[in-house]
C-alpha cells in the first residue's frame, strides 16, 4: 500500500464519522455505557486488590529462638533463614527490644511488665517477611524444623482464612470484569450489527468498483478505533473526576488501618490508559467483525 493511500484511509475514516451521523452516535454511546461500567468496576477491583495487598503485607513470621542458643547459633539461624527462597527481609529483634516494644504497646498497663526487665521471660525473635505474602505458611513450617527454634508464629488459623478470603475476592473480581467485557462486546457488536446493515450496500458497491477487501477494511478499522476512543472520553472524564474527589475528600476520613486508596496520580492515568485501550480494542473489533460478513473472501 502506498503512503498516500494510507493517508486516504485516515481521511476517509474521519469523514465516515461525520457521514454516518446517528450511527456514529449509537456506537459511541454503546462504548461509553460499557466503558463506564467496566471503569467503575476496575476502580473498585484495583482498590480492593490494593487493600487486600496491604492486609497481606502485614503478615509476617515470628521465629522465637530458644534461650539455649548462643550468639553463633543465632547468627547461623539468621543465615539459614536468609538463604531460604522467597524471603524478603529478615530482622533480628533481641528479647530486650521485644519487651520494650511490649511495654510501649500496652501503654499504661505496660508498667505491670516493668519488673520483668531484670528477668526477661521473652525470647529473641527473627521477624521474617516473604516476597509473596502467601508463602508465609510454607516458610513458617520449614523454620519450625530448624534447631534452637522454640516456636514459630504467623497468626495460625487467622492467616489461612485471610488468604482464602482474599483469593476468593480476587477471583470474583476477575470473573466480574471478564463477564463485563463480554457483555460490552455483545452490546457493541449488536449496535454495530444494526448500523452496519445500512452499510452493507456501501461495501457491495465498493467491491463492485474494484476495492479489495483490505482497501475496504482500512477505513472501517480506523473508524472503529476513533469510535472506541471517542467512546472512552466520557467514562475517563467521569471516573477521573470522581476518583480524584473521593481520594481527596473521602479517603482521608477513613482511618481504619489497612484501608487506603491507590493514590489518584498515577492511578487515574493508569485507569484512563486501560479504558482507552479497551475502547480502542472493542471499537476496532466491532468494526472489523461487522465488515467481515459482507466481504466475500
Amino acid at each position: 500500500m502506498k503512503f498516500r493511500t494510507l493517508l486516504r484511509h485516515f481521511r476517509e475514516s474521519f469523514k465516515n464519522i461525520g457521514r454516518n451521523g446517528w450511527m456514529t452516535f449509537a456506537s459511541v454511546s454503546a462504548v461509553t455505557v460499557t466503558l463506564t461500567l467496566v471503569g467503575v468496576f476496575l476502580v473498585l477491583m484495583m482498590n480492593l486488590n490494593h487493600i487486600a495487598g496491604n492486609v497481606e503485607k502485614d503478615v509476617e513470621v515470628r521465629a522465637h529462638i530458644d534461650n539455649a542458643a548462643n550468639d553463633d547459633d543465632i547468627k547461623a539461624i539468621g543465615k539459614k533463614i536468609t538463604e531460604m527462597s522467597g524471603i524478603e527481609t529478615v530482622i533480628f529483634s533481641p528479647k530486650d527490644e521485644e519487651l520494650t516494644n511490649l511495654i510501649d504497646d500496652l501503654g499504661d498497663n505496660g508498667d505491670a511488665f516493668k519488673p520483668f526487665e531484670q528477668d526477661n521471660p521473652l525470647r529473641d525473635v527473627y521477624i521474617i517477611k516473604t516476597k509473596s505474602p502467601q508463602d508465609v505458611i510454607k516458610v513458617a513450617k520449614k523454620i519450625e524444623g530448624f534447631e534452637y527454634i522454640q516456636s514459630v508464629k504467623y497468626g495460625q488459623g487467622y492467616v489461612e482464612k485471610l488468604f482464602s478470603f482474599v483469593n476468593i475476592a480476587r477471583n470474583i473480581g476477575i470473573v466480574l470484569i471478564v463477564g463485563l467485557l463480554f457483555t460490552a462486546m455483545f452490546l457493541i457488536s449488536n449496535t454495530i450489527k444494526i448500523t452496519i446493515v445500512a452499510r452493507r450496500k456501501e461495501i457491495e458497491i465498493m467491491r463492485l468498483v474494484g476495492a479489495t477487501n483490505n482497501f475496504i477494511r482500512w477505513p472501517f478499522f480506523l473508524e472503529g478505533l476513533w469510535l472506541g476512543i471517542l467512546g472512552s472520553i466520557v467514562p475517563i472524564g467521569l471516573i477521573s473526576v470522581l476518583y480524584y474527589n473521593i481520594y481527596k475528600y473521602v479517603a482521608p476520613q477513613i482511618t481504619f488501618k489497612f484501608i487506603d486508596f491507590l493514590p489518584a496520580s498515577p492511578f487515574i492515568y493508569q485507569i484512563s490508559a486501560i479504558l482507552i485501550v479497551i475502547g480502542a480494542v472493542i471499537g476496532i473489533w466491532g468494526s472489523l467483525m461487522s465488515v467481515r460478513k459482507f466481504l466475500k473472501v
Partner: protein
Amino acid sequence: MIEMIDVKKTYPNGVIAINGLNVKIKPGEFVYVVGPSGAGKSTFIKMMYREEKPTSGNILVNGVSLPSIRNSKVPLFRRNIGMVFQDFKLLQTFTVYENVAFAMEVIEKEPEEIKKRVMEVLDLVGIKHKARMLPSELSGGEQQRVAIARSIVNDPKVVIADEPTGNLDPETSWEIMNIFEEINNRGTTLVMATHNRDIVNNIKRRVIAIESGKIVRDEHRGDYGYEI
C-alpha cells in the same frame, strides 16, 4: 474480448437461468441483450463481471478466465471493466465527486491525476456543476450520469450495463444513450441489457436475444423484436 463457451448457470434453488450459451463479442462492439423478463439477461451480465459463477462452461473477459479467479481477486478483475446498473449503485454518503474518485483511489492513482480525470469525466457526462452534491440531491438521470462517469473513469476496455435506462423517463433515457454512444465511439466495448424497444430500434446495433437461458437470435443490426 468477451467469450462464453457452453455456459450453464443453475441457481442454488434449482432455477436454470442460463442453459448452454455460446457467444463472442469483439473489441469495440456495441451489443444489446434483449429478451422477456426472467429470460436470463441479468444472469448473463452478472457472469461477465463475476458476480455469479457459471455452473459449467467457461467465460473469458479481457483474456481472463472468470470461473478460475478467486473471490478475493474479483475486485482486481473488475478494475478493467465498467459497470452501470438500473439502480445506479452510488455510495449514498459520498458526494458525486467522491463517488467517481473512489474508483481511482482504489487503484492508488495520484491525487492530482484523480482530481483532473474526475472533473474531466464529470464534464463528459454533463454533471460537473453538481460535483459536490449527494446522490440523494440528484434526479435519476443525473445519478445515472454519475454512475456512467464512474464506470469510465479508469478507461476500461469494456462497459457492461444492466437496464441502465430502466428507471428513467424516455427523454432522459435518450440523453443517457447519447453518452453511451459517445463512449462506444471512443472504442470502448459496450454490452447492454435492455427493455427499451425505442432505443434498440433507433440506435441500430448488434442484438442478442435470450429466451429461457439460450440465445435465440443474434443479428448484426437487429430489432428489439418483442411487443413491449
